[in-house]
């Protein structure tokens, strides 16, 4: 395996792993705050049980998120030293601000996870608010770095090709920042909330028809459905930004080879970059022009307008985009089905619960697929139009070894994490008495 492929694979493994944990870091605090807030208002103990259970799961997830995030901050240099040497001074400020947000998150997370017995109920709930806000904020801030890599602004190049006249806040001026930050934040809530809903749907399916499981499902589905319904609006915003600033990526997402007016929207299909054809796709006339430019007759640039050595991998970009959109709409349907059922005859309907269990991983699939669209779709560039990925990569020949090491590490940690989370889920409410985990957390020193 050559260095470049190995480095891209290691980045994909590390980012793909961290992304799942980062999403939980953004969304779980909101769910905990809702459950604990309901407990404070109603005094019903099953809300407290839910918040405790989610805090326990979050303790595992956040720790892994913190260490895999640390790994990424090093890997930016370990894998892409020329990128960081070139652009550190311009992407660094966004990371620095994210660092502050993450710091606040870590501090209040310590208070929240370990402070159940040390803080008053209200103070404890209040300690959760900075966790939820700074989690969201760090995601939004770090998206600015990616946005800048998609559409670099705020600098000049000097005669030796180095960045000069840098605007330290350049990353926040990239036209992609808002679209990416909104789309990515929503996708974190969608992924986590549907996954949590699946856990409680599974409990209900097994006959645990109690307030604990019903409320767990309802809280999760409230967040899940709200965010899932907002996502197409944000997706439209993102798509139009791509049409304006990265037309070659949009063409690859849609597998549009020839520039045309009134371009159709393609659903599914397998593109063949060599022959420039798309097979088995379903075309919706004028669909793409309508979506990308809000005008059915707008001209959309095709891949053939760009030199082939500036194309991303069309197959991957197109398929990942189809997977993302497919999962997204499936989840919207699932959310609407849930609330309709709740309104009409109650949610304890076997097929709905089965669908919720089946839908549990789809949000994470959509999240990962969306990042494949963004990142693979940016290739062959690390900084769009400015630095090719092949020029950013490390010269160190040992990357295949580090790739194997990190793949094994994350596989092992991932398997262990899933095992522990499943055990937590099966134990049911912490107050039920059947649980083997002591309530107080760690034993206390004398």
């Amino acid at each position, binding site marked *: 395996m050559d260095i470049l492929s190995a480095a891209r694979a290691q980045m994909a493994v590390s980012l793909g792993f961290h992304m799942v944990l980062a999403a939980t870091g953004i969304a779980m605090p909101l769910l905990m705050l809702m459950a604990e807030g309901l407990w404070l208002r109603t005094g019903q103990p099953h809300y407290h049980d839910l918040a405790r259970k989610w805090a326990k799961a979050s*303790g595992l997830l*956040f*720790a*892994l998120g*913190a*260490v*895999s995030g*640390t790994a990424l*901050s*090093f*890997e*930016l*240099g*370990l894998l892409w*030293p*020329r990128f*960081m*040497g070139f*652009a*550190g*001074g311009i992407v*660094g*400020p966004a*990371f*620095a601000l994210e*660092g*502050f947000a*993450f*710091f*606040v998150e*870590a*501090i*209040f997370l*310590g*208070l929240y*996870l*370990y*402070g159940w017995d*040390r*803080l008053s109920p209200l103070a404890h709930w209040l300690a959760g608010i900075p966790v939820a806000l700074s989690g969201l904020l760090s995601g939004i801030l770090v998206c600015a770095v990616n946005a800048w890599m998609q559409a670099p602004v705020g600098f000049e190049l000097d005669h030796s090709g180095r960045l*000069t*006249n*840098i605007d*330290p806040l350049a990353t926040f001026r990239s036209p992609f920042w808002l679209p990416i930050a909104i789309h990515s934040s929503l996708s974190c809530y969608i992924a986590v909330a549907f996954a949590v809903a699946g856990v409680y749907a599974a409990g209900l399916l097994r006959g645990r028809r109690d307030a604990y499981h019903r409320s767990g499902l309802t809280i999760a589905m409230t967040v899940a459905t709200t965010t899932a319904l907002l996502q197409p609006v944000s997706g439209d915003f993102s798509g139009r930004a791509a049409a304006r600033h990265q037309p070659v990526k949009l063409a690859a997402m849609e597998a549009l080879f020839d520039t045309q007016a009134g371009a159709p929207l393609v659903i599914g299909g397998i593109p063949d970059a060599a022959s420039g054809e798309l097979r088995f796709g379903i075309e919706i006339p004028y669909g793409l022009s309508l979506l990308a430019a809000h005008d059915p007759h707008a001209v959309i640039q095709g891949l053939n307008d760009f030199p082939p050595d500036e194309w991303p991998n069309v197959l991957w970009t197109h398929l990942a985009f189809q997977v993302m959109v497919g999962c997204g709409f499936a989840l919207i349907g699932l959310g609407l089905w849930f609330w309709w059922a709740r309104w009409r005859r109650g949610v304890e309907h076997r097929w709905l619960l089965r669908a919720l269990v089946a839908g549990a991983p789809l949000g994470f699939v959509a999240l990962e697929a969306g990042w494949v669209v963004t990142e693979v779709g940016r290739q062959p560039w690390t900084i769009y139009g400015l630095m090719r990925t092949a020029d950013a990569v490390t*010269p*160190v020949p*040992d990357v295949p070894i*580090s790739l194997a*090491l*990190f793949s094994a590490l994350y596989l092992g*940690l991932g398997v*262990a994490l899933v095992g*522990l989370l499943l055990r937590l889920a099966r134990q049911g409410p912490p107050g039920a008495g059947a649980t083997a985990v*002591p309530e*107080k*957390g*760690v*034993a206390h*020193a*004398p």
Partner: protein
Amino acid sequence: MPLEDLVAGAGLVGVILYGVLGGADFGGGVWDLFAGGPRRDEQRAAIAHAMGPVWEANHVWLIFVIVLLFTAFPPAFAALSIGLFGVFHFVLLGVSLRGAAFVFRGPHVAHGEAGHWGTVFGVASVITPVLLGMAIGAVSASSFRVRDGQVQVAGATPWLAPVSLAIGALALALCAYLAAVYLTVETRGELQEDFRRRALLAGTVVVGLAALTLPLLKLETPHLWRGLLSIRAAPVVVTGVAAALLSGWALLRRRFRPARAAAIVQVSLLLAGWGLAQYPYLIYPDVTIQDSAAPPATLRFVLYSLPIGLVILVPSLWLLLRVFKTRQA
């Protein structure tokens, strides 16, 4: 004072805070691994209790240092990432396994129940500070060179030089010392005596390793040796040594709070002395603070954002420590 020196100084403060806070968490893992005697499980419980709420916040200082490095000194970060490719990957492996194992083993800290994760936690806590110390040694020992932006590494493991190994061992001993001293303040009775004995043992090892490292520095890294003796660094180092002796004496007399304060000063000043001796080099002898600094606009951003960030962080950290580090009635 030039802008880049101020930012480098902030980075050194970050290294020191990671040393005295994060370092003690590694030390906690060391004493978890070597817990023994009739109160073995109680020792482990005390360590877990002390670390639980704070270790993630302490860990953020490492991220702070890395982010500051690549923001303010991008070419230095790039060169370190190439020259220390191997050791950094092993550090990350250690950091990941330590953090994951600490939460995976759950509240069952007695090793029979904690299972393999308990062992992983201890072993990773021993290895990681050694590797971090070796990385510090490597940037001082010119174990790789940077010429015209190209990093030249001699051999596959340039960080395996004697000086690196000695500094790695010293780092481990200091982490173990800090943790044991902190734990004497957070425990009572026989458990407190257990940690006092451990602190005295680690302190003795620190003195021994320091005595071994100093002549090695003189032989292998004469520039660092001269730096340590310079008017810039020498007073800091001498005060650090005095603090070390003071903390040892306070431990002997069972004055645990002064011992903790002196130990913090000791480690802070040793790291500060290293930074001052190393000045103006980030990587000796090819990369200096000045010639690897980012453009002034970026440096100013970093410098001005620090006090704003601290206005939020300091009260938050104070609250965290107040809630968890003041003894319950």
